[in-house]
């Protein structure tokens, strides 16, 4: 207990040293940084300008645009593309009673919860399986295969799973001895297949996060637990997982953000179908705004989605407790 406290203190001191934010040094570092710019006070603004302009126009711009368009009845085509008017919160109240929006919320909830649980559990399992007792070359090989599934472009992952699960695909071939009937699993169990494809393409991220997290655990504590007679299960559940708490939380938030806003994989696999079986919120937004051309209404749905994601992202920022 005492030694781990010490280690934490040392760690803190190290962090503070590199960032110059310890109370005793903060004022000092601040003054030193200010002194650096005495001769060219405008240079800092000049250097910040390109990035700031890009962020303002292309990230802040669409956010403002979203709020503006969401309160109009603007359409993509037809007379309402030019002559549209302010409708206040009408689009939002319409969302509340739209069965398709309710469906999208439900599909998204099922998809996000099962994908996040799948990705996290599988990532954690893989990190544990490869932690010790496996030949380093084997670890490299297994990691490479799982990481390839993650780094290939999403459109390629979509193509792979379309072939794998689609009509007369490899999945149907493998399952044919045990399961007759419809050979297109994208029709038979679309949401399940889309979820499995998402887990396939995302697990590597969790695996890498947990591998790093496990690597960072202080070895003395684990050895002490073994000496005290804790078995493997007790060590994992009582000691390691509680110590990985913040790693697990970070992983959950980042995976939730990725999956919540995923568009490409589902769009290439099913385009939200059959019917509305895999229409998650991002696909619903796209359909309303582009395919059904009700721009104002679709944007209102997008604003709801952005608000949900912004909330999750804010949790992430607060969790990291940044010291800048």
């Amino acid at each position, binding site marked *: 207990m005492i030694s781990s406290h010490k280690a934490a203190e040392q760690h803190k001191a190290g962090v503070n040293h590199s960032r110059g934010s310890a109370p005793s040094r903060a004022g000092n570092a601040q003054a030193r940084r200010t002194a650096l710019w005495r001769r060219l006070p405008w240079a800092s603004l000049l250097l910040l300008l390109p990035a700031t302009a890009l962020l303002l126009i*292309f990230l802040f711009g669409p956010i403002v645009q979203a709020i503006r368009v969401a309160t109009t009845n603007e359409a993509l085509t037809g007379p309402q593309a030019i002559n549209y008017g302010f409708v206040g919160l009408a689009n939002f109240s319409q969302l509340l009673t739209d069965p398709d929006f309710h469906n999208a919320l439900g599909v998204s909830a099922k998809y996000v919860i099962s994908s996040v649980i799948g990705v996290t559990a599988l990532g954690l399992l893989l990190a544990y399986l490869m932690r010790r007792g496996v030949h380093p070359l084997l670890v490299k090989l297994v990691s490479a295969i799982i990481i390839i599934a993650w780094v290939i472009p999403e459109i390629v992952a979509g193509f792979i799973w379309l072939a794998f699960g689609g009509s007369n695909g490899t999945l149907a071939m493998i399952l044919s001895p045990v399961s007759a009937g419809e050979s297109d699993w994208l029709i038979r169990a679309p949401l399940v297949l889309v979820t499995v494809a998402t887990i396939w393409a995302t697990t590597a991220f969790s695996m890498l996060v947990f591998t790093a997290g496990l690597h960072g655990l202080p070895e003395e504590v684990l050895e002490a637990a073994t000496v005290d007679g804790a078995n493997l299960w007790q060590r994992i559940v009582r000691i390691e997982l509680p110590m990985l708490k*913040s790693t697990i939380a970070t992983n959950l938030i980042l995976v939730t953000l990725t999956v919540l806003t995923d568009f490409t994989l589902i769009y290439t696999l099913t385009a939200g179908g059959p019917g509305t079986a895999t229409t998650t919120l991002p696909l619903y937004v796209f359909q309303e705004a582009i395919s059904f051309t009700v721009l104002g209404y679709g944007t209102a749905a997008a604003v709801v989605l952005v608000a949900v994601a912004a909330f999750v992202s804010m949790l992430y920022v607060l969790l990291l407790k940044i010291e800048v």
Partner: protein
Amino acid sequence: MLAANDSAATARAARKRVSPGGAIQHIALAAITLIFLVPMLWVLSASIDARASFAIQWPHLTAGNFQGLFTGNVLLHPLWNSLVLSVGTTALATVAGSAAAYVLSRHRSWYTRGYLFIILFATGLPVQLLMIPAYTLFIQLNVLDSVPATILFLSATSLPFAIWLLKNFIDNIPLELDEAAQVDGAGAMTRLRVIILPLAAPGIAVAAMFTFLNAWGQFVIPYILLQSPDKLPAAVSIYQYMAAQGRVQYGPLAAFTLVFSLPVLLLYAGLSRFLTGAFNFGSGVKG
């Protein structure tokens, strides 16, 4: 250095006490790996199969699927478009990001904290959410279907992460070097050129590779912001070939996706040795 020795010793100790559950461990690992591998195998076999279908099969060997890619412009042109978009985005985001990161690391002002807070917040906010509003914005600005405007947009979406990464790299360059150079009469711009850029070069390379990877595989942004067939990047043309279900020729398409994925795999392999610490959330950031 000390930490590296430590972990090597731990690894050696760990290897000595192989757990009795080793067999179960290896079987579980093999099973999971196989499940991950099987869907990929189809692309490999289909790409060299003259009669490829969706089901995996022993291929009727041919190199024709690959040869076909390099005759005519049908598939080479989209790859060229991808390259233009990705290189443009990488150049812009890296230059603008390095300049901003330098100021955010070395100049403390009233806005520094807020600026960094917004940057970190934006790294967690996936941009595909903003595509519909961005689409209407592009119509208003009259830049829909413009490659340069799409590059600007792609750069803006990569900037938060690039700035965050670069700022952390520059933070690790000792302030004393800046001060010594200042005493020698070097101004802020000179110090950026002579000290910061050379010493942050590995960080800049990592940021550039990340930006390139994102831009190269990006589907939604060009799909919505570009329209002319001759401007579309490979990710969008792959989708269009797939969507034209009836006419899809699986063999050539599989070969094309392999060629398209190759730069990503090579870059990631090059990048991976820099990444050992990048996934260490929670333990490193929290003070």
